[in-house]
């Protein structure tokens, strides 16, 4: 499937037990378990007297619920109970709204109350003794609807002609203007001004192998809620759940296990978690399981944000250097904001992308529509903006007749400018975009393809070469939420970890993340192995999240490309603390100075040795002194527990919320992709002829894991660009709600990918690593650019992020009406 990739680290895998382990191509510790089918997923959990929940969902995108009759379902043998939105609303609080002002008035419950706002919204839930009985009973629930006018476009929603949340009185969720520099002056002095009427980033999602799963038990004996689930940001979920369910947050226990992919989409499963808990309560405390079907996942889990860019004006100097951008952006967050409107500020982490322009005004809007609520899908909010910037660069390049590689070189932030402060105060830690372009061009054979392209065009073939340069910003400053709502209680970022020597001397590490394939077990072991100078196989890493392990903070989970920085910094801190305690203990035990000690592996396993005497004590001996043989301990060592928790805190400050200025993210990994695409002259099917992905995520902890994530993100992006789109019809039916219509990318559709790597270590993390894994949706930008190049001569401007044979056909049809001329105008001064 993939072309053979050059190894990032030249050295062979270390087998002799000596480090350093960070940077080594260590096979994933998780692999053996997962590949042999021995993983433990939420649906593998079977509990005594477990019940099964099935949702009844709205066929309408917008309708008033006239009545719900659950009596026939409840009368069915084997059915335990049913719940409706109205019943839930009577015993809960609406979910917390992050947005300010009118958005605060939105009343969001986990099932529809009075109105349904998107096709697939739950209106009732039936609980039965088996999944089949629950299915059958759900069909007996009678719901009467009165259809209302649906709103499926964000621009249309902003007219407030048909309002979704009547209590808010508007469909607008948020609006704010980001303005920096002197935009007016830049336009006055521009040599060229390019106007782009409309660009559109389409709605797509993730299709994890494992759908959402929740098991909830509201235990009547201790009045605590126990969750076994695959939510990927549980520390966020429990904050929402506690307030919603009127229960102390410490009374909610969440455990996650192996998770079969999330890509951010599983962050927003807390409404279903609430329904399952309330169902368990109604069922007298019996555990209730809900396993989402694929169809449910497609219509009602969460989609990525859709965004429209209107009236974009770009000022350029005589050399094609962009001096200013002025644009209006409208984000569609679906029926309920939920994690939104955080996306209204998250994009500004990459405000200027990889480019140097200093003057810009972005008027940003977000609206609700009668579509599935959005969630933080891989590349969340930033990929839409980065795609926009890449489109701007390519359109301007074509209009001015500047080759796209040259256009980028003229506009890139220069390597010597790092750390680079963006117009809105973000600090890009490191990077070398020209070098990445050089590596990518070498890998793909740029000059050769240019020649082939020239020859092919003589034959009438439509071949395009596209470049996409993008950023993967990692480790958020949650203080940016205060730009959205000054009363938001979040700022900074933190992650916890615990590192201990167990009673028999085993090194055990627990972290607050929820890995879904990112290899946290392996990279954690690598970091600790280097601290203690032992082999990673000697370290046990507790995977999965558990509130009762007490290692999490309010930001714990797996999202936003941060584990390599936040998670591993916490692990490193905890390991250092443990090492310091072990050193003190060994100094006492071996009767020598701490400076005289060295950590390593001896005859009896991991040990600490006195260099002067050769005496040593192994880990079991150390643990024994503290846990079992404690009478020998002198009082000055009573504080030694060999059980060390460390909370790493990112060095952030609260941004200036009025100026919308400050550091919003700690690290900036970058990706540069090049695609060669041919559009078939007869079928108009775009085919990738060659593809290169170059990644820079700073110091690499584990090369194969990084490579795997680059391939995954690339596949996801290619799917999004060419195959996957959440299409809604005019009345809000989702028309791509099955895999046969949504056509998620598979191994059969992924081209050979040539992989390359450059390294600019981050000065902002202890190891030089940067968070990665989201890929910045680089393929979406790159494929749009390649198609632009292939079709520009045909009078086509690529103005949508989704392009398949059908959309290219429609663009070609529209060409007769002057698609390019209508969309783009060039003014030469």
């Amino acid at each position: 499937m993939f072309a053979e990739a050059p190894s990032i680290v030249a050295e062979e895998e270390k087998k002799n037990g000596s480090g350093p382990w960070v940077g080594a191509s260590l096979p994933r510790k998780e692999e053996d378990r997962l590949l042999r089918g021995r993983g433990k997923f939420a649906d593998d959990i079977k509990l005594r007297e477990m019940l099964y929940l099935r949702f009844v969902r709205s066929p309408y995108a917008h309708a008033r619920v006239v009545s719900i009759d659950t009596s026939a379902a409840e009368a069915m043998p084997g059915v335990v109970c049913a719940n409706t939105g109205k019943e839930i609303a009577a015993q809960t609080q609406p979910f917390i709204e992050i947005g300010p002002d009118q958005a605060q008035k939105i009343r969001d419950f986990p099932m529809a109350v009075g109105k349904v706002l998107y096709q697939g919204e739950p209106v009732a839930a039936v609980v039965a003794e088996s999944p089949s009985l629950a299915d059958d009973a759900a069909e007996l629930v009678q719901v009467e609807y009165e259809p209302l006018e649906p709103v499926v476009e964000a621009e249309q929603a902003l007219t407030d002609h048909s309002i979704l949340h009547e209590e808010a009185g508007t469909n607008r969720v948020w609006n704010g203007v980001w303005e920096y520099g002197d935009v007016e002056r830049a336009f006055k002095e521009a040599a060229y001004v390019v106007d782009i009427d409309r660009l559109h980033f389409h709605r797509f999602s993730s299709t994890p192998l494992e759908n959402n799963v929740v098991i909830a038990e509201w235990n009547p004996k201790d009045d605590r809620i126990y969750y076994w689930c695959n939510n990927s940001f549980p520390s966020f979920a429990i904050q929402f759940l506690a307030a919603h369910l009127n229960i102390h947050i410490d009374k909610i226990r969440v455990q996650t296990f192996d998770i079969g992919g999330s890509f951010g989409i599983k962050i927003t499963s807390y409404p279903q978690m609430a329904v399952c808990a309330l169902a368990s309560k109604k069922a007298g405390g019996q555990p209730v399981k809900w396993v989402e079907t694929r169809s449910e996942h497609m219509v009602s889990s969460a989609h990525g944000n859709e965004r429209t860019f209107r009236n974009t004006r770009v000022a350029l100097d005589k050399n094609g250097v962009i001096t200013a951008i002025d644009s209006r952006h409208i984000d569609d967050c679906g029926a309920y904001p939920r994690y939104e409107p955080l996306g209204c500020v998250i994009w500004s982490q990459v405000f200027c992308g990889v480019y140097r322009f200093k003057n810009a005004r972005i008027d940003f809007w977000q609206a609700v529509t009668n579509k599935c609520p959005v969630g933080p899908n891989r590349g969340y909010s930033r990929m839409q903006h980065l795609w926009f910037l890449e489109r701007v660069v390519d359109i301007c390049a074509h209009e001015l007749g500047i080759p796209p590689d040259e256009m980028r070189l003229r506009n890139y932030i220069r390597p010597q400018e790092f750390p680079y402060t963006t117009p809105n105060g973000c600090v890009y830690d490191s990077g070398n975009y020209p070098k990445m372009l050089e590596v990518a061009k070498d890998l793909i054979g740029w000059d050769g393809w240019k020649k082939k392209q020239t020859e092919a065009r003589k034959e009438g073939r439509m071949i395009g070469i596209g470049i996409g340069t993008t950023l993967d910003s990692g480790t958020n400053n949650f203080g940016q939420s205060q730009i959205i709502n000054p009363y938001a209680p979040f700022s900074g970022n933190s992650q916890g970890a615990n590192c201990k020597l167990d009673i028999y001397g085993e090194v055990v590490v627990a972290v607050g993340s929820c890995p879904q394939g990112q290899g946290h077990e392996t990279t954690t072991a690598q970091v600790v192995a280097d601290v203690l100078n032992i082999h990673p196989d000697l370290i046990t890493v507790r995977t999965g999240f558990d509130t009762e392990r007490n290692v999490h903070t309010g930001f714990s989970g797996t999202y936003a490309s941060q584990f390599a920085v936040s998670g591993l910094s916490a692990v490193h801190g905890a390991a250092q603390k443990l090492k310091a305690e072990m050193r003190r203990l060994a100094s006492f035990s071996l009767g020598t100075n701490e400076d005289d000690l060295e950590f390593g592996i001896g005859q009896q396993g991991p040990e600490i040795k006195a260099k002067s005497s050769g005496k040593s004590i192994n880990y079991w001996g150390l643990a024994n002194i503290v846990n079992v043989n404690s009478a020998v301990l002198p009082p000055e060592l009573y504080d030694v527990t060999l059980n060390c928790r460390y909370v790493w805190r990112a060095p952030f400050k609260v941004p200036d919320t009025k100026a919308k200025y400050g550091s919003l993210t700690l690290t900036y990994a970058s990706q540069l992709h090049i695609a060669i695409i041919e559009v078939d002259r007869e079928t108009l099917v775009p085919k990738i002829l060659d593809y290169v992905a170059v990644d820079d995520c700073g110091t690499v902890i584990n090369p194969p894991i990084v490579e795997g994530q680059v391939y995954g993100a690339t596949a996801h992006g290619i799917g999004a660009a060419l195959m996957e789109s959440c299409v809604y019809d005019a009345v809000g039916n989702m028309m791509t709600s099955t895999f046969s219509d949504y056509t998620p990318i598979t191994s059969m559709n992924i081209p050979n990918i040539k992989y390359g790597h450059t390294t600019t270590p981050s000065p902002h993390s202890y190891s030089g690593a940067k968070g990665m894994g989201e890929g910045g949706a680089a393929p979406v930008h790159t494929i749009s650019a390649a198609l632009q190049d292939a079709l520009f001569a045909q009078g086509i401007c690529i103005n949508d992020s989704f392009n398949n044979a059908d959309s290219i056909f429609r663009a070609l049809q529209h060409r007769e009406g002057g698609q390019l001329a209508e969309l783009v105008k060039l003014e030469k001064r």
Partner: protein
Amino acid sequence: MAIKFSGEFEVKKKPEEVYDFLTDPNRFAALLPDFQGLAVQDAKHFTVKLNVGISYIKGRADVKMELAEGDRPRRAQYKGHGAVAGGNVTIVAGFDLIPSVDGTKVNWQGESQIFGRLASVAGGLLEPLGKKQIQKLIDGLQAALA
């Protein structure tokens, strides 16, 4: 999703006779494709039971119909809505009756909106299938009024 339909036909009956036929649920409803049963509530309201089957989605639909406009002998319009397997449907169907030399010219037009999984899963099939079913109804009407 919306399916729009329209057409015309002529029958050798007076407009009054055509109107009376169209507004009599017992005669009109029986011509609906895959008709299974009828319950008449009053002169303007009735519920028809229909068999619905598209690919693997099969089931019975209860469609509540209302004679929304009745202007004897010029125009009759039905509005209906119902739950069908995997979705909901609304129907508006109007008949304009124009006297002709031999009898009555019937101009018919309407729109059906389909919501839910039925539209999502079977969207591509619905329009041709819907039009085929409408044609069956019109053919039935013509035959009955012949």
